[in-house]
């Protein structure tokens, strides 16, 4: 049993990375007061864009850029509808998921089953990567390292930078922020676009680092799990990382139990991440006071810049 811990950690981290990337983006969006439920749709659009780019000869950085731009494009639509046109954030996010799933399956039809000609491979850090248990943390691909840096980056941005302070105040009280002279809508657009680009990056991870092929609906609900992660983390980047690892761990455990061949149905094991999400949501939400203390006060509420 002890021998198999390190590979278990490795597969937990592999499952955690895309959740972490997507959740960090959503966290910034939500800290600015916008709830974008379209994460899954933006991830799918990003995944397809990256896959199409790589199939048509683009290099990995360009494919990543394509994925992030596609995610951001979805986010731009969300921003236009909710920030400029005052549409309901919940309904717009849902429709973004429906549209993203539709577009990616429509445009991706000709790519189903093809393998990606180039993929993100792991770059072990010599010495550290061979450590027991924590070794896998030093044996990631570029996107993995980027995700870990992003945890620190997002934390620093929100807590230590002036713009981060502005962003948080927009999420707490847009009316006050505006009366102080902040360009509320501009900051919100920025936060939404960042969230979209990160979702696109997470999608790219699924297409070019994890599955390494195109599959319809390849994110299989992980966008929604990432949304739950933000709540679980009570909108704090460090806790998002811990939460992502926990969820990755549950996924890895399910896969491991399948290979070991315990007498449990594979379908029951596959439902573990979803059930874990519910358990986590219930346990974190039961303490409403704590949740309210940390949630951005204006989260999900419309703000009209005109009156």
């Amino acid at each position, binding site marked *: 049993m002890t021998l198999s811990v390190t590979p278990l950690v490795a597969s937990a981290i592999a499952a955690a990375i895309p959740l972490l990337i997507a959740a960090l983006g959503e966290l910034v969006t939500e800290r600015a007061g916008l709830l974008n*439920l379209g994460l899954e749709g933006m991830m799918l659009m990003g995944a397809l864009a990256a896959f199409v780019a790589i199939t048509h000869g683009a290099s990995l950085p360009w494919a990543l850029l394509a994925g992030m731009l596609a995610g951001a494009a979805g986010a731009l*639509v969300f921003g*236009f*509808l909710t920030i*400029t*046109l*005052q*549409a*309901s954030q*919940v*309904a*717009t996010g*849902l*429709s*973004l998921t*429906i*549209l*993203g*799933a*539709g*577009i990616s*399956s*429509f445009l991706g*039809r000709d790519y189903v089953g093809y393998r990606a000609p180039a993929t993100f491979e792991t770059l072990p850090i010599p010495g550290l990567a061979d450590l027991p248990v924590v070794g896998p943390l030093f044996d990631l691909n570029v996107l993995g390292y980027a995700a870990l840096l992003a945890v620190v980056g997002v934390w620093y941005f929100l807590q230590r930078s002036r713009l981060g302070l502005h962003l948080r105040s927009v999420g707490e009280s847009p009316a006050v922020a505006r009366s102080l002279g902040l360009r509320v809508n501009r900051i919100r657009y920025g936060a939404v676009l960042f969230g979209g680009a990160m979702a696109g990056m997470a999608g790219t991870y699924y297409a070019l680092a994890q599955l390494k092929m195109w599959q319809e609906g390849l994110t*299989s*609900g992980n966008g*929604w*799990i990432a*949304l*739950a992660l933000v*709540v679980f983390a009570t909108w704090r980047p460090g806790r998002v990382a811990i939460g992502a690892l926990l969820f990755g761990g549950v996924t890895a455990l399910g896969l491991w139990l399948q290979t070991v061949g315990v007498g449990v*149905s594979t*379908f*029951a094991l*596959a*439902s573990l991440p*979803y*059930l874990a*999400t*519910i358990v986590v*949501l*219930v*346990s974190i*939400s*039961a303490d*409403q006071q704590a*949740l309210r203390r940390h949630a951005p006060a204006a989260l999900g509420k419309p703000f*009209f*810049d*005109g*009156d």
Partner: protein
Amino acid sequence: MMGFELVRRAAPSRRMQVLAPLQAVLLTLMAGLGLFALLGQNPMHAFHEFFIAPLSTANGVSELLLKASPLCLIGLGLAIAYRANVWNIGAEGQMYMGGVFATGLAIHFQESWGAFLLPAMIVAGMAGGMLWASLTALCRARFHASEILVSLMLTYVANLVVKYLVFGPWQDPQANNFPLTVEFQDNALFPLLAALGWEWFEGTRLNLSIVITLVAIPLAWFFCQRTFAGFQLAVAGVAPAAARYAGFSASRAIWMAMLASGGAAGLAGVSEVAGPIGQLNDRWTPEYGFTAIIVATLARLNPLAVPVAALLMALLYLGGESVQIGLQLPKSISQVFQGLLLMFLLGSEVLVRFRLRRRHPTAHAAPSASVSVATAAGEKAA
């Protein structure tokens, strides 16, 4: 918004409440023409193939009704839930469980229950949908967990439950390992309308389950407009604080909303497995549960408008199938249209509460509250 700005209306525009959905449909059709042109199709030909051809035969019309019926049923339930501001987006999973519960009876009591089998399946399916929805209601009402995320997670779980059953204990031993149950006997199926002697339906798959939908429409309307419980739900949705003050329990509203929408979705599940599908398999639904979200939204949560929205969304499904056969375009084009329609609708709805005003060249600063209130009031007086 170059050169234009939004000004809040003093009261929502009634005219725009009707016009906004029409505008969204129009914009979607225009986007569709553009999309077909981009794909190298003759736009008018593709348009005909998508929107007109499916309706040109009696069979096409009956297929439209066959698809619209479950969409309408789920949409009615969701309209009730969304009125209460309870965002059940897991109707898909509740529909799965309706199908599962009905199938359980159909394959285990095929011989013994005779003519009582189908009515029992209807009740069981509804109960299955309600049971699955009650898990979300419990998480939301008791523990304040987001019903959006919980109901969606449970949809993934319900899908795995179906897979487990049709790959495992309920698999037809004669199915060569295909994930499906035995085909239901006649006493577990809704009778075809054609078999009841209505000649017009000869050769179509339309069945008696449509009656459930036809009854549900006025029922839902009556519940929303004429009952105290429906009123309480709406108040809980629009003004939670007022509802609390009036002594309406918030958790009761959540339970009612979830049970109503879950029960409706469960019924839709029965009407599918005991209708056109005639068995349970692992991919029997073209995501009616998710599409019904669009149906309810497009109908602006008005039960009497839900059937119209359901017919429209059913047409999008049929159109997708039609261009797949006729023009070799992917069927998922339906989903693109559905998403576009919802997006356009949400964008158009802005005009219900706001009006567009040409921005005055000198007044580039944000207008103050008093100015826009004054103009809105002036407009009302005029």
